[in-house]
């Protein structure tokens, strides 16, 4: 049985480990972002994601992204086995830069959108979508 002393010791130990310096390794999400931005910095304004707070089924999650002035929008599901969801390039006959679609999310995660703007700069934003497992039998 865990005594209070044990729990405290475990807790202190865990926070000690957390404070150790850890080398960051490139994740698939980092790779997906780098493939799009080339490592450039991303501003955190100028792009917005609309997504449900709770997705009733991860198979079909409606989302939309608005980024006025963007030439290209990329969607990344940071928690999916393959983070890339889609890349949408706007042509000369495009209207206001927006995209709405339905995506598959394998679990609760942040959905990220990155916009490439006309001047070559990038903007990004992310939103958490809770994905429910479903009921009896899913």
């Amino acid at each position, binding site marked *: 049985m865990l005594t209070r002393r044990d729990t405290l010791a475990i807790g202190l130990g865990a926070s000690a480990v957390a404070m150790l310096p850890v080398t960051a390794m490139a994740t698939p999400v980092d790779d997906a972002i780098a493939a799009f931005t080339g490592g450039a910095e991303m501003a955190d304004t100028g792009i917005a994601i609309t997504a*449900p707070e709770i*997705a*009733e089924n991860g*198979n079909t*999650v*409606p989302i939309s992204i608005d980024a006025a002035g963007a030439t290209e929008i990329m969607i990344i599901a940071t928690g999916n086995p393959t983070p890339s969801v889609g890349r949408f390039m706007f042509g000369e006959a495009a209207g206001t830069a927006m995209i709405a679609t339905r995506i598959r999310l394998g679990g609760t995660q942040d959905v990220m959108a990155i916009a490439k703007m006309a001047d070559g700069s990038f903007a990004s934003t992310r939103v958490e979508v809770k994905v429910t497992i*479903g009921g*009896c*039998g*899913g």
Partner: protein
Amino acid sequence: MQHLKTAKSMALAAACMAMFTGAALADPDPTAELVIEGELHLVTRAPSDDLTPYLPERYSGWLFRTETTRNLQMDDFENPAMIAVEAGADAWETAEGTNNQSCMDCHGDAEDSMAGVRAGMPHLNDAGVLWSMEDYVNNCRTERMDAEAWGWNSGDMRNMTSYISMQSRGMPVDVEITGDAAPYWEQGRDMYYTRYGQLELSCASCHEESYGLMIRADHLSQGQINGFPTYRLKNAGMVSIHNRFRGCIRDTRAETFAMGSDEFRALELYVASRGMGLSVEGVAVRP
């Protein structure tokens, strides 16, 4: 019968529903209106009566879904079930069988001839046997078109039942349960209150005693079938009534009945009667 704890469980259900009002999942949201294309109002709340003495009101499953899911059903373009409806519409006009006839050759425009058909299903045929819509479709195919029957849950059948169901959209569910239909209805009622499987759950355990509560991450509805055939987001495709019954009973870890079985036809009649007054939703969207 398993209603020893009715008063207690109703109080519990009421308390739990009260808990959920105001939370992010404030469903069923009784104020939500199901309006298709901004024009057609569907009835999602209907008065209860002697058939459902333990339901204070009848709620469509639509009310229990999140706003995102509800919105998908309100626009005929965004509703992914419309793909099946269109496929059914095409099949309606496609000649088949040795007689080289289409549904249209005998039935004309489905909008006229099929209006109200879904609302009254299932019902007795001329020989006094209870048939579901799938039975009527296959009967026409095999007896009149001399074509092959479609599998109960085949894509073709689901497309056709979706199309036919659309022709009753907005009409109140109204099934015959008296006279010769009564024995089927009673069989269905008995099944509804029978506990099945290792989990020993009856339909009532979840859909009458616990609607509004969560089962894992799913928001339990009253188990109405006015929205069937429905596009389930989980399947990314249409699901038939018997398919759903089969899944539900399988989920109690029981040996489930087959689609197209007599048991499920009887259950279908009973469950339909519990939803009388709700609008047929044509093709609904559910998670």
